[in-house]
């Protein structure tokens, strides 16, 4: 249900109920007021008749009933009927249209039913003349009078109510206009338009929505930019080795001397190896990003031994010594694939950046904050201003060796993020240490 419809229904219903209550209350109090006025008129009329006959200005024959001629109309001004009874119980006189039956047996106000018609009567006793003056009017006449008054009050109310509903409709529409504007602005945008919404003089309620939307746009833009960068870098990183391969193949084919040809063929072999590694790393990165790795019990020392064993060939080729310093550790529960990716890339990276004759140390220990795995090399280290960039995909330092794909630390960072671990880079005196701290499962949850 739209906010507009909801507001209109609620406002109209509430207003309607209040309006009806007000109308009923006014009708009720008007009816009571009119009854009171009519009762007062009854009493006054009875007293007036009584005083008129007391002054003898009107003769009342004691002998027989007399009819004062009065036109019998339904006119409201002629509704009163008057009877004068002797105290003995004889009808002395009556107004025309008055019933023959005695209208009241008691003095004061009362209600009588005569011939099936209810009357409101007032009786007053004139002790001096020995008569009782009774004045009454028909209740249905009274009701007609009251109904006339109340209906004149109700008509404007009934006419005004739809007008009120219309005003509610318009006001709600106007009140919700900023929402409609926001919606129009959003609908008019192209899907790739991620600029922030322009500052408008929004009402206070809309402002947080616009701010939240702008934040979202900004994040999306960032993600899109990163993705675009990734595509551009991936294109560059994949096509450059291909260009190298092709050109070296052409050089090899047309080289006049064997030395040039052999160099070109060697370059081709190197380039194929590097491309292979890059493709492997890209697939590894994609797997870390998109696949959930199963957790299992894992012996850190065994994992390190396995990785060091695998890296031995690369280390020997680079004349780098691999040293392991691992405390005896309890098995941990972690996704093996991620741990393996992170640690292997760290070790390969360290070997790559080590000078010939250098040493790469792999350490494992249990610290206060959890399991700590660290790889230290004796290379040039990562410049402090580059530390925040090294985990970016395809980023290579200025002192790049030309062998790296720029993906190693990106893979480490992605795996570490999935492991819920922490990655620290610091450069001790010479070289570079990269440390992964894996919190204990109890702490992690």
């Amino acid at each position, binding site marked *: 249900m739209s906010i507009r419809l909801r507001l209109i229904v609620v406002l109209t219903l509430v207003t309607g109920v209040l309006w009806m209550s007000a109308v009923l209350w006014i009708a009720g109090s008007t009816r009571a007021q009119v009854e009171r006025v009519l009762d007062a008129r009854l009493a006054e009329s009875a007293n007036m008749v009584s005083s008129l006959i007391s002054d003898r200005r009107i003769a009342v024959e004691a002998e027989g009933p007399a009819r004062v001629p009065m036109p019998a109309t339904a006119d409201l001004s002629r509704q009163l009927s008057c009877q004068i009874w002797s105290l003995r119980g004889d009808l002395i006189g009556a107004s025309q249209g008055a019933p023959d039956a005695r209208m009241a047996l008691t003095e004061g106000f009362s209600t009588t039913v005569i011939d099936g018609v209810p009357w409101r009567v007032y009786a007053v006793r004139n002790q001096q003349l020995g008569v009782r003056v009774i004045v009454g009017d028909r209740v249905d006449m009274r009701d007609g009078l009251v109904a006339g008054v109340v209906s004149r009050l109700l008509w404007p109310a009934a006419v005004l109510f739809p007008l009120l509903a219309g005003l509610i409709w318009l006001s709600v529409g106007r009140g919700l206009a900023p929402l409609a504007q926001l919606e129009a602005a959003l609908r008019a945008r192209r899907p790739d338009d991620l600029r922030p919404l322009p500052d408008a003089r929004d009402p206070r309620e809309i402002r947080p929505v616009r701010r939240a939307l702008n934040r979202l746009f900004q994040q999306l833009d960032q993600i899109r930019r990163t993705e675009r960068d990734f595509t551009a870098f991936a294109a560059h990183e994949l096509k450059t080795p291909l260009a190298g*391969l092709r*050109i*070296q193949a052409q050089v090899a084919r047309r080289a006049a001397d064997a030395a040039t040809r052999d160099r070109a063929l060697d370059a081709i072999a190197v380039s194929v190896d590097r491309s292979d590694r890059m493709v492997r790393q890209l697939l590894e990165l994609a797997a870390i990003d998109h696949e959930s790795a199963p957790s299992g019990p894992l012996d850190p020392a065994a994992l390190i031994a396995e990785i060091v064993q695998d890296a031995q060939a690369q280390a020997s080729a680079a004349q780098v010594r691999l040293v392991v310093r691992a405390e005896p550790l309890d098995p941990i529960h972690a996704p093996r694939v991620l741990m393996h990716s992170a640690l292997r890339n760290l070790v390969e990276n360290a070997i790559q950046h080590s000078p010939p004759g250098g040493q790469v140390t792999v350490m494992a220990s249990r610290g206060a904050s959890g399991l700590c795995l660290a790889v230290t090399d004796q290379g040039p280290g990562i410049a402090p201003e580059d530390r925040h960039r090294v985990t970016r995909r395809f980023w290579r*330092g200025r002192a790049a060796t030309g062998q790296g794909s720029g993906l190693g630390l990106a893979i480490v960072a992605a795996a570490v993020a999935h492991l819920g671990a922490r990655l620290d880079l610091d450069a001790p005196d010479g070289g570079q240490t990269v440390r992964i701290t894996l919190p204990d499962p109890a702490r992690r949850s």
Partner: protein
Amino acid sequence: MRLLIVEDDPVLSDGLRVGLGLSGFTADAVGTLADARAALRDNDFAGVVLDVMLPDGLGTTLLAEMRAAGQTLPVLLLTARDRVRDRVEGLDAGADDHLGKPFDLDELAARLRAMLRRHQGRARPLLHWNGIDLDPAALTATRDGAALRLSRREFAILHALIDQPGRILSRAQLEERLYGWQEDVESNTVEVHVHHLRAKLGRDVIQTVRGVGYRVAGAG
């Protein structure tokens, strides 16, 4: 024709240097924008082969700097993404030509020759001077229709001189055209090549301007 290659990938960079050398160019290679700036400041190149993505920034940044400084040196961009937008961006940044990776060595050499030719205000691919025809693409020379057998270096010296007839080129200028940084220059090698050229073309073709350098007579 001496070229500067700005490419950070060692295999491609090496391939370009050697491959362009086989195509009759002399090429030097650098891997970063900073090195490229220094090389351009200190040397006289005929053209630049520029990669777009380099470790310390974008090739187009260097290109824009060069153009802002009023350098008209022709530049060929190597792009990984060969989309229309990338090409337009490169050309608008001031590139004279572009080539998407991977590319053919012959196409690169042909594009470089065309680019350098246009830069010199020449439309004809062949050079012609006093009955001598040089084909820089095929690295062949003929005199009055008869083929001349020239070595690569001899061809380069004749090419440099015939390119601008009447202009005197010093020995150092000729050496720069012949050798990249990685090649050792023997002290009298230009004289040796000129001597060989004179033996093949006749004594009067290349004139020695004593104490200055060499030239061929103006107005071919």
